[in-house]
């Protein structure tokens, strides 16, 4: 479904602090599967995630989605694809303070111009599913870590994307909450959503919910596990 061909990413090109995050990745991500990227920090897994999710463009190489090359698209189209296809859960959650949980969840759908009532209904349904319905109107800064993460997940799902991308999802959670997260992940896997995540938490990588683990080191893939 998502194909990467000899993808490289170099930051600060031409300057004294030039840094190659990815040095040639060729990878195919299968649809409807949970794929985990594993590797130490600095291995380039977050960068790979941003390229897969259309948050950035590769310095060289090609990224294609459903056989369609997206690495060369102009920003407008890239944003639209990103909005429709991918949902992001950031490691730091990156929720907007001062706004309620519901408002944060609906945020990615604002530019689509769908009616307010519809969006609210969808957001409430998502909260319901994640067992947070009673906290919909609470300001996000008043929520606990686990609640915030669930809001972040709901936000990622508001546009009903095919792919959910999560960066170090259990890094800020204790074991109980991490297990809860994996359970949610499993339900996603069952309903046929593609999930790509990065982690070096054995709880995640060795979980039954993960179908495939991709190992990385120093900007390159090392071996494939299935």
């Amino acid at each position, binding site marked *: 479904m998502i194909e990467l061909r000899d993808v490289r990413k170099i930051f600060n090109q031409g300057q004294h602090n030039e840094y190659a995050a990815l040095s040639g990745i060729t990878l195919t991500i299968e649809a409807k599967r949970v794929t985990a990227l594993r590797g130490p920090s600095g291995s380039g897994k977050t960068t790979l995630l941003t390229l897969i999710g259309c948050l950035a463009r590769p310095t060289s190489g090609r990224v294609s989605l459903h056989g369609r090359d997206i690495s060369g698209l102009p920003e407008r189209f890239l944003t639209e694809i990103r909005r429709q296809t991918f949902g992001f859960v950031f490691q730091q959650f990156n929720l907007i303070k001062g706004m309620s949980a519901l408002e944060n969840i609906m945020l990615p759908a604002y530019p689509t*111009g769908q009616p307010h009532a519809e969006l609210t209904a969808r957001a409430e349904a998502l909260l319901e599913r994640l067992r947070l319905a009673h906290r919909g109107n609470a300001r996000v800064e008043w929520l606990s870590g686990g609640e915030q993460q669930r809001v972040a997940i709901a936000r990622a799902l508001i546009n009903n994307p095919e792919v959910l991308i999560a960066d170090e999802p259990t890094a800020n959670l204790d074991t109980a909450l991490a297990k809860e997260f994996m359970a949610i992940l499993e339900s996603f896997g069952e309903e046929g959503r593609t999930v790509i995540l990065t982690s070096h938490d054995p709880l995640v990588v060795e979980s039954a919910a993960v179908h495939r683990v991709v190992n990385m080191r120093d900007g390159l893939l090392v071996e494939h596990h299935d």
Partner: protein
Amino acid sequence: MKFWLERQRHLIDFTLASLARRKAKNLGLLAVFTLLVFVLASVMLFSHALRHEAALVLKDSPEIVLQRLVAGRHDLIPPGYLDAIGRIRGVQNTQGRLWGYYYDSVVKANYTFMVPPDGGIEKGTIVVGPALERERGLAENNGISFRSYNGQLFSYTIAKVLPRPSELVSADLVLMNEADFRAFFTYPEGHYTDIALSVANPLEVRNVASKLANILPDSRPILREEVLRTYASMFDWREGLMLALLSAALLAFAILAWEKASGLSAEEKREIGILKAVGWETGDVIKMKLWEGGLLSLTAFLLGFVAAYLQVFRFNAPLFEPVLKGWSVLYPRFELVPAIDGLQVATLFFFTVFPYMAAVLVPIWRAAVTDPDAVMRA
């Protein structure tokens, strides 16, 4: 279309939520902005309406007023002048006028004493302006004494008070009989203060004035168009107080805009990054910010302008009274006829709303066009 509308509404929802997070600061901003518009609009409306009113009121003043100058200063019109003018073609009427100033030490006010051209004032009586009625408590049939400049005391009875609505031109007038006037000021017989001429054809006025200057070289003719021009340039923005006010307003506005334009806090940068990461285009971010600037400045403009209108025309400009009154003791009470110059209003609108919107946009431009992947890295 429906989608576009809904989309803008969503953007507005977000920007308002964003503004509400710093309620105090943004309300303060709105207040300052509104005040600025209020002051500018008040001055604009007031001066335009007053100029307009002056033009209306003085449109029938004498076509030519002839003064005599001696060593560059006003002097009396001597006997024989009127005859010297004789019959100039185009002049319908030549009238010697008698008027002067009197300083009343009781209330420390200056009055304008005048003999009406058509007479009609009985000897021993005077007709006074409404401000005198107010300041000195005069009414019909009251008596009043004035001490003339040579120390003599003269007494008069008030025959009538001029109507209140005419205060703007008649506030300090004291109309008297010619004989009384000459006696009071010891005005030499046959002399006049100046001469008023009426000319039927407006195109002829200049010619007549030239002829007068020829016949009477020490005279100075003042044309009605010059009178009107004096009042047309009243409160010109290039003059003293007005310039100071305008400069202050511009400075305040520049500070406001600079405050807005001087960069983004880390929090704001992060927010924009998040918006882009979750699927907002650069265009969406920019539109959202434009709404923020636009709504704030539009509200400030509308509020400030409406308040200015009410202050000037419905409450009779209490804020301007001390400015105009200056050191005067007598000040006319008048209700201006509202005259609004649409061009001025439009100019005020364009020079408040759009620069502010631009100022809001400047700092976020950078952040808005940056790639969202920086957010992941945070």
